[in-house]
């Protein structure tokens, strides 16, 4: 479904990605793990068109995204939940979700998407009239994910959904990820919490200073002694 071929990315004179290749098959959950500054978020920003590769190709469903504007990439079915949630703090929960359906046409379709999101996050239904800025961190993360789902994406890019959340909230966020997957949405998940990420993912890529150093099924990565030492704290 998504394919990166030998991609370089530069931020000014600094090279952030070195010949990154990866593949996400339809219906899978693929995780990118790595330390701070390894280039995980850069990969997501690259896919959603916020930055452009200096070399290599990004293919979504076989078509190159090189000349597709960020807002048009969304229209093709790729939703990005950026790091740090970025909910519209001054708008209500419902208004946030409605903005997520910006590209969805027809009241019935928006209604259906909304019901689905509320089913996934009952808490958001309770708080729909509340301003997003007054939500707790976990609720804001739910809102950010829910907002992205309102656009009915086929590929969801999740950037550090567990960032700054209490452990039991981390559990529930990963529960939600499993729920999203059941609805047939493909996921590319960036995480520092490698433990949880490898538990929900089918496959994983390990990124170190802009290079893919390892990729395998999630189970085998979780069992790999190097991964265990470097990322699972064992």
């Amino acid at each position, binding site marked *: 479904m998504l394919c990166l071929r030998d991609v370089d990315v530069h931020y000014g004179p600094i090279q952030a990605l070195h010949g990154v290749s990866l593949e996400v098959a339809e219906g899978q959950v693929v995780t990118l793990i790595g330390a701070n500054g390894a280039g995980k978020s850069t990969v997501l920003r690259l896919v*959603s068109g*916020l930055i452009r590769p200096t070399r290599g190709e990004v293919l979504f469903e076989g078509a190159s995204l090189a000349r597709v*504007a*960020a*807002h*048009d990439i*969304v*229209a093709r079915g790729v*939703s*990005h*939940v*950026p790091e740090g949630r*970025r*909910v*519209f*703090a*001054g*708008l209500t929960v419902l*208004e946030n979700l*409605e*903005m*997520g359906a*910006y*590209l969805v046409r027809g009241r019935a379709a928006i209604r259906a998407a909304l019901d689905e999101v509320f089913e996934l996050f009952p808490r958001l239904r309770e708080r729909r009239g509340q301003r997003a*800025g007054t939500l707790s961190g976990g609720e804001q993360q739910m809102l*950010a994910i829910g*907002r*992205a789902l309102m*656009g009915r994406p086929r590929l969801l890019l999740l950037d550090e959904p567990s960032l700054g959340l209490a452990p039991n909230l981390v559990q529930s966020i990963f529960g939600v990820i499993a729920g999203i997957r059941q609805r047939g949405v493909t996921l590319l998940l960036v995480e520092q919490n490698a433990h949880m990420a490898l538990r929900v993912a089918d496959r994983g890529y390990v990124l170190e200073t802009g290079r893919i150093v390892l990729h395998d099924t999630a189970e085998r990565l979780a069992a790999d002694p190097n991964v265990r030492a470097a990322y699972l704290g064992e």
Partner: protein
Amino acid sequence: MWAHYLPRLVLYVAIGSVLVGLDVGLPRLLNAYLVQILVFVACNIVLATSLNLINGIAGQFSIGHAGFMAIGAYATAWLSTTHGQRLLAPYEGQRLEPLLIVAYLVVLMFLGGLAAALGGLLIGLPSLRLRGDYLAIATLGFGEIIRVLLLNLEPVGGATGLRGIPQYSSLFLVLVAAVVTVAALHNLGNSVHGRSLLAIREDETAAEALGIDCAHYKTSAFVIGAFFAGVAGCLYAHYTQFIHPRSFDFMKSIELVLIVVLGGGNLRSVILAAVAITLLPEGLRLVKGALHLPFDPRMAIYSALLIAAMLVRRERVLQAVLPGRKGGGLRE
């Protein structure tokens, strides 16, 4: 089915009859000075609500709004003094004349609006690259460029100003324009377009990630806001009959920003603030006479009241006065 539209219809009829009543009654009740103040109030409502679209809703801090007003005022005043008057001259004194004047002014408002919208496009494009303080400085520069350009443009009077503009505008027409502007901006604010602008104000990256074409919407806010400012300029010029680049200087832009900030971004409170800020300096003229002061404390009191208003309001005092709130205020 149409019972659904009944309250709205009643509202429109009520507004319409109030306006007609004002048109017939006010010039008889009020002297020319008071009528002129009301014209300025209505002009400022158009200007402030249109600036609110750019500053309040889209969150693009612009302090050059008087520049757009100037474009609309000068473009239409120039048209009227060079062509318009001659065009309408054969009909002078005829029964058709008032109707023709209104029709002519409506066309003129559109032209003035379009000219200003072009300016909005011009300043909207750099806004795509600038944010916050930098954008504010760029819009300030734009406003000043317009003013200096007009100051040196001999065909429109240059530093002596443009005089002899026919008085085609009236309190009634300005009030109608204000109502239409507010209605249009109200509907825009509640549409997908308005919501997208709100989303851009709240978080541009997130908005882009939802598929909103930020560049398009930000430019559109400037173009639409400028359009209405141009309309206001046209009405202003054709009421005062004399315009000078000084009428559209930096202080005018600041006055408008002040109204928007005081109004807290909410349309109704912006209107209220426009009324208050326009009436206040005029009302304070009475203080000197009433207290038998040897000096005029008008501007001192005005400034003190502004400081007090900002201190007290913290979060939208004017909104607290008005019940019900929809949409957003300015960014906290």
